[in-house]
């Protein structure tokens, strides 16, 4: 249970970064932390203490195995996170070229 709470705290740290920070790069880091937290949470859901990989072979008697499906899914999710992060960083770089700053309080030509 403690692990899940730590995961929640990590998620909240990321969300805090996205919502409260003024620097574009710090916002992106916050987004990254959020993605890690949710991937970690998904892996934890399939984890058993002292569990092992569910590889079925001869003379193997597996009693306590972890759930492999979340691990496969998290791999996909990590790749998606990589794509989003790469795109957002390249946009942030272009913004820096145009505005000359990473401060979001100075990047406000649009009204929302």
């Amino acid at each position, binding site marked *: 249970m403690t692990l899940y709470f730590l995961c929640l705290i990590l998620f909240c740290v990321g969300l805090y970064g996205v919502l409260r920070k003024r620097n574009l790069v710090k916002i992106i880091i916050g987004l990254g932390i959020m993605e890690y937290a949710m991937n970690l949470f998904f892996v934890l859901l399939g984890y058993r203490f002292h569990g092992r990989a569910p590889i079925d072979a001869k003379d193997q008697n597996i009693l306590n195995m972890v759930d492999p499906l979340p691990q496969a899914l998290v791999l996909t999710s990590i790749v998606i996170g990589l794509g*989003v992060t790469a795109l957002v960083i390249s946009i942030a770089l272009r913004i820096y070229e*145009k505005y000359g700053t990473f401060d979001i309080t100075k990047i406000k030509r649009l009204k929302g």
Partner: protein
Amino acid sequence: MNSTTIIPLFVIIPLAAAFLISLVGRFIRRSSEIIIFIASFTLLGFSIYARFLLNSAAGKIMVYKIGGWVPPFGICMVMDGLSSFMLVTVNLIAFFVAVYSLAYMEQYTDKPKFFTLFSLMVCGMNGVIITGDLFNLFVFLEIASIASYALVAFGTEAEELEASFKYAIMGSVASAFIFIGIAFLYSFTSTLNMADMARVLNYKENIWIIPFVGVLFLMGFGLKSALVPFHAWLPDAHPSAPASISAMLSGVLIKTLGVYSLVRILFNIIGSNHGYLTILMFLGVTSMLVAVVLALSQWDLKRLLAYHSISQIGYVVLGIGLGTPLGVFGGLFHLFNHSVFKSLLFLNSGAIDYASGTRDLKETGGLGKLMPVTAKTNLIASMSIAGIPPFNGFFSKAIIIIACLQKGNFGYAVCAVIGSILTLASFMKVQKFVFLGEIKDKLKNIKEVPFVMLFSMVCLALICIFGGLMLLPSFRFFLDDAVAVILKGTSYAGVVLEAASRP
């Protein structure tokens, strides 16, 4: 050949088109245009053909098992009334937008990259619609979202980058909430197949986790569909994109990623109850009124249209949230109509921008004489969105209002009428400042836009005029089947699993 093999083609064709365009588009002139035209035309043809195949399928459902794995072990693709309805809507708009872009994108450099991203977006949307697996839905949702983030920033001007950054951050937060919702559902049901999940949830005790997951999905998909408390990104992102992409974003993307996924999960997997429906209706009415009031004070044409998208999504959500057969029917009919006339309005705004180089309402005027076709199609679309008979918007709005009255929600019906009147007011402003009045000296010698752009606009305008005919008994199956899927609720599970067990 089994008739279900048509289903994966909706993902394969746009994906292959994106691959081919990025491969050869740069080296062979005009190849990207030819590929995108063929791909979007085949997709439109296949989606209509699949609609008729569905009529002859047993139980009006087709299930394709990827790799032959029977659900719940493998991923399956499900085509039922609702999926088919959304597929026709998405591919119809995508075809006309693709044709329009052939000429419109001449202003921008690097057409092949644009068409690559465009086909990836279509691929993501088609995937979201036909998939029968919850994690698969998340993956396709992200494909469509990432492509749209990149497309919003396509012009790489300062405002576009800023809007794209905002959109990307908000979209990623929404995806995070959706992902956590999926993780919770998986941990509770130990399955990811949507039908199997609904089956497991049906016989489990109803505990606190289901409302919790419901709220996570409401937040995530609410952000994706820009309902009012979550709408801040839309009025920036949609106007900043190239006009043809604004048409796709406002026309179909927010509906597919937001409304369709939300409806599918809330109604078919979790099972709707009074609480969710009340929240949906409340969100719908709030978006309808708040956004239309904000739209009244806008002077940028595309920004005004973007606020109207939020407002019209409010009508769709209100209709579906009513939960009665008539309400859901009205909501889905309005979804189709809105995607037609809102894409038409955005294409018009693109044509005005293309011809005159501005989209500020204070700088245009008198364009009606110089651009007769754009003016006429815009008039038709404006009257449709404001709900004037005999255009299609009138019928769907009338059905939603009647459904509100039938259910006894008089307040919501009055709000819907007020929203409609305010919509009319702001589109009269558009007509007055863009097409009527004196021609400014600066704009004396502008010309009508090229033929392909006109072709798309005229076709969409014709659909606006004749859209009301879908209420006739011989065409009603198109909407009725979609409504039936939503109203069936969680018995969706049994239908899909039975269809999947067929050889």
